[in-house]
């Protein structure tokens, strides 16, 4: 049996032997409050009413099977929004209520680790959301009774609701652990989850249903709840495995793990190790996401392959840039406590490398990001060369986008390292990064517009070339195999961003090293003073 499996089994046995006390207490409180069951009944009653009304009206004009399919779409669409909105809010409130109720410190002082607290909160919120799902389950089975819907579709639909709930709950936990007040936490989680749910429903629901219909004609186009249907109706093959198994699993697991680590880091004290969990996630998630994106590119069909390559590349680069904002919050170096714990545990080089410390963290962000961009772009290039209709043009455009993305990403990492080394707090560095991103991406276009060049002369648009978005202007020339001013300007600016990034990174790392060394010197001096006092006191006592 592998050590990992042994550890997992041990953890499961321990969890069964000693259930998380926070989970048990929250469930007890929730049941006693009476508010939760009432809310669950209200949601169920409303869904039932809507479903019955729709079913009643539709059955006047349509066949039962058609009514069943309509009700199925309606039910799971509504349930998706209920879960997407309720899960984060419930989890966020669960964490913030500890702060507002002034019970958080009592909890911390019990010696429970932040991860254990986070798991208790997760389980509690998941139990509440699970209660909602259990209550609405009979309503969800109604479409099956009308026909036109397989039982597997209903079951898979609920599995997906559970997955959305799990991601929503961990997101809410991450928001709640960083918010001082319940109103703020619930407000942020509702706004973000509503926007995300709307986007996901429109793009991944309605939008992708057409692509799914193209790939598998038995899946209806324009039906937002197409995934469960695809499981039943699509023929099993490589595309099935990638689109319906690998990618959905990654889309659920990677954010879930990320939000969990984010929440645990936020619950952990500033002098403790907040970095290892998040860095471990990055180390796994970055290549896995790149491989997943590459698989999408390889499995894509015909002309859509280039679009998929470009979308995967841009999405990967943007997410990497957003992650800079997360990881710039790391401590400049390991605290004395962390070093003491490492020494006590006999931590090896890898454990120390994954621990707190800005230079190592930003190096990891940089390396994983660049490798990921290279992998996704490389896969796109290979796919274009092997299967593309116009390989040279596609390759040129992909390489240009990868080059510009990687350069700007490198600049942002350098800027973040430099800013964090100079700022007293991570928030200051984050502001600098956001301003740097906005100024670099949109500033040149604004400058171009202010100059009125957008109207007067196309060639003067080169003013906007520092923006990574400018690479789009070079597409036509690249596709035609020409090297014009736009191409040269775009690539020159990319080189400029990369050079600036390397320089800023080097300065930031050097300054961080100086600060950490000065801190160690101060601690050593304080230790020496205290030791001298002890010696003097002992001498006086003798």
């Amino acid at each position, binding site marked *: 049996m592998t050590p990992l499996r042994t550890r997992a089994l041990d953890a499961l046995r321990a969890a069964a032997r000693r259930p998380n006390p926070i989970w048990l207490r929250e469930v*007890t*409180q929730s049941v006693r409050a009476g508010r939760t069951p009432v809310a669950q009944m209200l949601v169920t009653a409303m869904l039932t009413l809507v479903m019955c009304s729709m079913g009643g009206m539709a059955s006047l004009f349509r066949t039962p099977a058609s009514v069943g399919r309509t009700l199925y779409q309606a039910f799971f669409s509504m349930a998706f929004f209920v879960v997407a909105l309720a899960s984060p809010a419930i989890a966020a409130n669960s964490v913030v209520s500890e702060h507002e109720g002034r019970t958080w410190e009592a*909890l911390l002082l019990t010696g429970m680790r932040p991860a254990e607290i986070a798991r208790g909160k997760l389980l509690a919120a998941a139990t509440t959301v699970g209660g909602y799902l259990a209550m609405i389950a009979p309503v969800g089975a109604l479409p099956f009774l009308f026909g036109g819907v397989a039982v597997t579709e209903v079951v898979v639909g609920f599995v997906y609701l559970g997955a959305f709930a799990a991601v929503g709950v961990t997101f809410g936990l991450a928001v709640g652990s960083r918010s001082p007040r319940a109103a703020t936490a619930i407000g942020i989680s509702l706004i973000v989850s509503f926007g995300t749910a709307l986007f996901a429903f429109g793009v991944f629901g309605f939008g992708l249903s057409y692509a799914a219909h193209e790939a598998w004609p038995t899946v209806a186009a324009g039906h937002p709840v197409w995934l469960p249907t695809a499981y039943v109706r699509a023929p099993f093959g490589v595309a099935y495995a990638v689109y319906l198994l690998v990618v959905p699993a990654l889309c659920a697991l990677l954010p879930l793990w990320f939000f969990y680590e984010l929440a645990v880091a936020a619950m952990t*004290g500033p002098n403790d190790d907040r970095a290892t969990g998040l860095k471990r996630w990055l180390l796994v998630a970055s290549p896995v996401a790149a491989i997943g994106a590459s698989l999408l590119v390889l499995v894509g069909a015909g002309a859509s392959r280039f679009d998929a390559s470009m979308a995967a590349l841009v999405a990967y680069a943007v997410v990497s840039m957003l992650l800079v904002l997360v990881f710039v919050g790391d401590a400049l170096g390991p605290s004395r406590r962390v070093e003491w714990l490492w020494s006590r545990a006999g931590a090896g080089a890898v454990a120390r490398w994954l621990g707190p410390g800005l230079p190592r963290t930003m190096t990891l962000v940089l390396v994983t990001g660049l490798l990921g961009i290279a992998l996704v772009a490389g896969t796109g290039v290979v796919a274009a060369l092997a299967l593309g209709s116009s390989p040279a043009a596609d390759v040129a455009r992909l390489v240009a986008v990868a080059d510009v993305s990687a350069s700007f990403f490198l600049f942002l990492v350098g800027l973040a390292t430099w800013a964090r080394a100079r700022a007293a707090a991570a928030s200051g560095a984050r502001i600098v990064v956001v301003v740097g991103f906005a100024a670099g991406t949109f500033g040149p276009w604004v400058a171009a517009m202010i100059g009125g060049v957008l109207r007067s002369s196309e060639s003067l648009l080169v003013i906007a070339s520092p923006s990574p978005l400018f690479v789009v202007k070079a597409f036509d020339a690249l596709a035609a195999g020409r090297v014009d001013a736009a191409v040269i300007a775009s690539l020159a600016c990319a080189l400029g961003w990369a050079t600036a990034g390397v320089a800023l990174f080097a300065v930031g790392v050097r300054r961080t090293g100086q600060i950490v060394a000065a801190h160690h010197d101060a601690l050593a001096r304080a230790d020496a003073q205290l030791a001298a006092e002890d010696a003097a006191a002992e001498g006086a006592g003798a």
Partner: protein
Amino acid sequence: MSVTPAIRVRHLWHRFGQRDVLVDVSFDVAPGQIYGFIGPNGAGKTTTIRVMATLLEPTAGRVEIEGHDVSIDPEAVRRLVGYMPDHAGVYERVTVREYLTFFAGAFGVAASRVVPTVVELTELGEMQHRLVAELSKGMRQRLQLARVLLHDPKVLVLDEPASDLDPRARIELRDLLLELRSLGKTIFLSSHILTELADICTSVAILERGRLVVAGPIDEIAQRLGASPHASALDASGEPGLVTAGGVSVPASAVRRLRVRVLGPLERAAAALAGGPGIVSVEARDEWLHVSYQGDDQLVAAVVRQLVAHGVDVVGCEPERRELERIFLEMTQGDRP
């Protein structure tokens, strides 16, 4: 070999923004003591306590609990300390027993073993099936104390434990703390109410505007301070002093005070002691005999023997606690510039 202090605070500094909240605070608390931490509101008491409880990182300096540095090994410190904050929150929709069972689980101790013990110690037995929301402030405070006792900590750190309590609840809390001390706990408690501390503390530290004004056993501080309300003469060194019944001038720093509760006429008891060896003055007021004396605990025993020999029934005897008020007033400046 010297005994390791239960709490050791050394050159503690803490800064919020540009303001120094604690400035070079140092003191030791010996094991088994009830140690009072006195200071006006905003003096830095809670900040010091939160550093001790591992909830706040010191800007500089070191705090050790039973030899463990709070900054380096907070996990060990959390196992040793029971911290009860001022105005702590509670989970209201659970019963007292569920509340304690939850925290026992969180501490990782067997609830079936510790909860009944703690319930008995804190006399929460009759309340254990009531919802926490239904408890009075005094009972909630008692519940908080029960919570911090669940993991059997060696050191109790209590921040304003009697604030908002009615007189009965205060007396009950005081008795409970004395009982906990008898169980070997070191108790560190803060307050700005001197009478609250005077009855139970053996040592104090006074903090004002983030600086430690004085720290140590109350008697020693009183002796160091010297001047007393009863001072009426100057000794050879010019130090304010007292004159005994025999006309001997005694430096005030050498004078200690105790009060004795007796049955029967106070005047008769006062007469029995007046002029005795080491006795500086005897005063009968407020149903107590207030005795100023020069000597050690042997003399206190002799005072009791003397009273009994004269047929006086002695009910109790304790150090004069108004010392604390005097110390506080003399050592702190209040709003004076």
